[in-house]
């Protein structure tokens, strides 16, 4: 079984972002970039399926700038067999990315496609569901457990009130939640080996997909800052403030 994993290059999750003064976006110049944390979990799950003998090949794909080759190499160092970069502009919307991924799915015909549940930059939580709609495949979003047997994937999903398990016919789409697994680190020998693994670059045009969008970002601004708080000296003082100053209890 072939597994396709989609990853995204994003600002590292520990970086405190700065909004540009002209309101055009956030400042990404000279900022550390990494694989989106949910995508790392997706790569890890695919590699585990391969280690269990369920997956025969793990293909990792990214839609984005040429610089994302770095993240694709990292994914191969973690165990993916080969990589595809669909070279496109930065900051594409989820629908455009889903359409590009659909083009890759048609070429590669994977049985299982794993994505992260959301990217920590746009916080959209859309691409996996949109790819499922475009391909007509079933979707198992926010997965905290995945079991593949025969032509069915059993996915336990994190929902608002607890957990829900669904059975999906393959091919299917799964998006990962934080608790699906603990991603491994790339070892130095594997990082060296990953440099020799195949990385194919294609254009959206070659896939025959249009990347037009119906959404335009007009402005990006910093959120209103909270006014500075105070430190209280004792629990009694805290309770007094909450009762008489903030009037919340």
């Amino acid at each position: 079984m072939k597994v396709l994993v989609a990853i995204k290059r994003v600002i590292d999750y520990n970086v405190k972002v700065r909004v540009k003064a002209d309101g055009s976006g956030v400042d990404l110049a000279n900022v550390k970039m990494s694989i989106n944390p949910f995508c790392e979990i997706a790569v890890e799950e695919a590699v585990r399926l391969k280690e269990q003998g369920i997956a025969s090949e793990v293909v990792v794909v990214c839609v984005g700038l040429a610089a994302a080759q770095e993240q694709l190499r990292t994914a191969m160092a973690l165990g993916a067999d080969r990589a595809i970069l669909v070279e496109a502009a930065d900051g594409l919307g989820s629908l455009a990315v889903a359409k590009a991924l659909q083009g890759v799915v048609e070429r590669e015909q994977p049985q299982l496609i794993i994505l992260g549940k959301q990217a920590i930059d746009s916080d959209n939580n859309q691409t996996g569901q949109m790819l499922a709609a475009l391909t007509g495949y079933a979707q198992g979003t926010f997965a905290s457990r995945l079991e593949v047997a025969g032509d069915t994937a059993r996915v336990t999903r994190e929902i608002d009130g607890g957990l829900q398990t669904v059975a999906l016919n393959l091919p299917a789409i799964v998006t990962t939640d934080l608790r699906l697994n603990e991603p491994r680190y790339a070892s130095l020998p594997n990082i060296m080996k990953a440099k020799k693994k195949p990385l194919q670059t294609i254009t959206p045009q070659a896939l025959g997909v249009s990347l037009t969008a119906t959404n335009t970002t007009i402005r990006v601004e910093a959120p209103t800052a909270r006014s500075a708080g105070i430190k209280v000296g004792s629990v009694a003082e805290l309770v007094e403030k909450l009762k008489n100053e903030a009037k919340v209890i």
Partner: protein
Amino acid sequence: MTILVIAEHDKGALVPATLNAVAAAQKIGGDIHVLAAGAGVSAVAEAAAKIAGVAKVLAADNAAYAHQLPENVAPLIVELAKGYSHVLAAATSNGKNILPRVAAQLDVDQISEIVSVESADTFKRPIYAGNAIATVQSSAAVKVITVRTTGFDPVAAEGGSAAVETVAAAHNAGTSSFVSEELATSDRPELTEARVVVSGGRGMGNGDNFKHLYSLADKLGAAVGASRAAVDAGFVPNDMQVGQTGKIVAPQLYVAVGISGAIQHLAGMKDSKVIVAINKDEEAPIFQVADYGLVADLFEAVPELEKLV
């Protein structure tokens, strides 16, 4: 303009998040219709008809819509959406699961988790874990939007008298099926709707120590939340997680106990009206957003707080 709001429901009852989604629809302006899709939704449809400001309720009752499987519910919404200017749902796990599937089938971009309505086609939404606010304009014929419930005060659940219309359309993709559910039970208020939230982090040390927070919460009529660290350590179940990838809350009072205040946690609670931090590390980032900070050992401070409130 006519707006379709997807009703969120659970165990045959309307979920209050629907009221926040209707509030966002009112800000956009126009007639508001509510879709109740599921198996056995008559009570949900009746409750939706009573929501203030709702003009019509569509009831789609079909076994295939049970458990809100997106493969079956999304085509239903797509079929209905063509007559509407906007399709809205609360950004709950169901809304987030189903609506992008609807948007892609309609070939439009979705706008996720709006926190304000600027005009009928322009909305504000947080990005980068809430560290930036984007203003987004949509040119889509049908605008597909999820609503962050904390951004909109709920409309009244009573006062409306909308007509209920039955929708016969049956869609069953046959590609997925429900297997089982494991729901957490709690007598305390729902986390996302509570007026007061008491949350614990890694500093709680173990799951047993959360009993201190439960008894404080009971005294305050509060819900109990947690940071990712507390969930990952197995102290509490993951549906209690507050943050970028967990639940987004904005209560009147948020008490963070033994929580350092990572970017990802702040994303879920920094719109709370009053934030209290109890932490023994005075350098903890949580103190930068706290209105009232107490540098103390939580195992002494929490029982004392419980006694005094």
